[in-house]
């Protein structure tokens, strides 16, 4: 099997060569500790400042509002716990949604155990959070609202500006997990009233192990990793210098190539969606039909289960992902698919194919050729499908 088609860009991307090349000298040549007084340290410090500028510029923030972390999860944890612990005296209520990434959900659940009160908002059938629902959930003791920019499973884009506007009116901190949005959506934190925003480099062709949290000046936040005075005392630890150089370059490239890439990827996405919906019966498209990430497709194929579909695709060289959390040891299907109202048995049969820069029309055609056969074969093997056919 020599064909290998990667359609799991929402899980992670390769690091762009240009990004890697910019990182390389920082492993062996410019290796000083940026906190050091000497030349080896100072030259590195300057490069970190450049990276910080690039990240800030991409989202319309100030450089001093960017804090580098080890990834999206740490950024989410820092934002949510950081604000919760620092603002306890004002209130202990947090509003979020049922479709957040575990980095937000589990953090909120941990805070619940510690005595915070959390409202997990419902979403509609497309996975959209209603700004009105956010407004109605606000109480006197609400200190934080956290709503993801775009969903990692079904790609639905949220009305972030409206929600942030409501938070702003009510003087409640607003955080958005934009891990999936960076590079696919143009964001301006100032115009959009966003107080905090999380990102992870490895979702936009930067290296793994580095992310960033934007924190608007004036937001009260305590750190979750204590120690040295790096990142202006908000995140201790010797900086992941090559990683930081990498996220800086990657975000710059993402927005330089923004129009070209997203137009092409959207076109491929639509071709894939159209092809699958036409060729495979008993199939649903999950997520919003229009308001979705340019690179996201997510389907439920009734009567079959996601993992066996994935494995079969993998044997044909196609790498996708299933909403079902099978591999993580739980029998629960995706919390996101349940939140949009799918019954368990259908939610088990989901497939996410997420596109990237490298994908071509031929890739899509190959998927459209291979996938229907696999689905059919698995259905022939499924006792559920038997009943459907029988009933016909």
């Amino acid at each position, binding site marked *: 099997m020599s064909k290998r088609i990667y359609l799991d860009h929402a899980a992670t991307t390769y690091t762009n060569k240009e990004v890697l090349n910019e990182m390389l000298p920082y492993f062996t040549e410019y290796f000083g500790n940026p906190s050091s007084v000497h030349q080896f340290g100072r030259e590195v410090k300057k490069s970190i400042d450049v990276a910080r500028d690039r990240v800030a510029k991409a989202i319309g923030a100030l450089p001093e509002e960017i804090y580098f972390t080890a990834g999206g999860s740490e950024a989410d944890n820092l934002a949510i716990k950081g604000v919760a612990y620092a603002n306890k005296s004002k209130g202990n209520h947090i509003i979020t949604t049922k479709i957040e990434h575990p980095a937000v959900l589990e953090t909120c659940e941990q805070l619940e155990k510690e005595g915070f009160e959390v409202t997990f908002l419902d979403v509609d059938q497309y996975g959209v959070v209603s700004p009105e629902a956010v407004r109605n959930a606000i109480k006197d003791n609400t200190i934080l609202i956290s709503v993801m920019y775009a969903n990692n499973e079904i790609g639905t884009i949220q009305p972030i500006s409206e929600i942030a506007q409501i938070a702003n009116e009510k003087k409640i901190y607003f955080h958005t997990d934009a891990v999936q949005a960076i590079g696919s959506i143009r964001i301006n934190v100032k115009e959009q009233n966003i107080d905090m925003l999380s990102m992870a480099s490895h979702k936009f062709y930067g290296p793994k192990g580095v992310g960033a949290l934007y924190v608007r000046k004036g937001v009260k936040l305590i750190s979750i990793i204590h120690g040295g005075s790096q990142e202006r005392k908000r995140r201790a630890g010797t900086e992941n210098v090559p990683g930081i150089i990498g996220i800086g370059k990657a975000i710059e490239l993402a927005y330089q190539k923004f129009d070209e890439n997203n137009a092409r990827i959207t076109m491929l996405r639509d071709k894939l969606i159209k092809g699958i919906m036409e060729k495979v019966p008993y199939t649903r498209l999950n997520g919003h039909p229009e308001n979705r990430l340019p690179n996201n497709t997510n389907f439920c194929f009734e009567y079959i*289960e996601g993992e066996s579909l994935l494995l079969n695709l993998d044997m044909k060289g196609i790498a996708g992902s299933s909403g079902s959390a099978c591999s993580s040891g739980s029998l629960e299907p995706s919390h996101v698919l349940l939140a949009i109202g799918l019954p368990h048995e259908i939610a088990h049969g989901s497939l996410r194919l997420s596109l990237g820069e490298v994908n071509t029309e031929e890739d899509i055609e190959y998927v459209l050729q291979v996938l229907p056969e696999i689905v059919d074969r698995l259905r022939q093997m499924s006792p559920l499908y038997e009943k459907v056919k029988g009933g016909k």
Partner: protein
Amino acid sequence: MYSDKVMDHFSSPRNVGEIENADGVGEVGNAHCGDIMKIYLKIEDEVITDVKFKTFGCGAAIATSSIATEMIKGKTVEEALKITNKAVVESLDGLPPQKIHCSVLAEEAVKAAIEDYQKKKAQ
């Protein structure tokens, strides 16, 4: 994640299908949990002469169904009843911890089909 043996049984499952007028049929699991196994038996003189299965489920569910049907084919009903989930796991060269329940399902599916046969016979 999966052993070669699991992948073999998953990618070329043995005994997939249905048996018309089967002597015993057992179905266990439910769609809610993401696993259903259905086993059909043809039994002559207490010997399992043919067996087929249909499974809705993950890779391990399909592989355990496949190997379980292989393990009971040609066996007497009594022998087949002795097959444990542990034996299923062993003959697949192991399963990841979170997939052990699939082997339990396979054991239960075999038992359910045999029970069905025995119930029919008793009538």
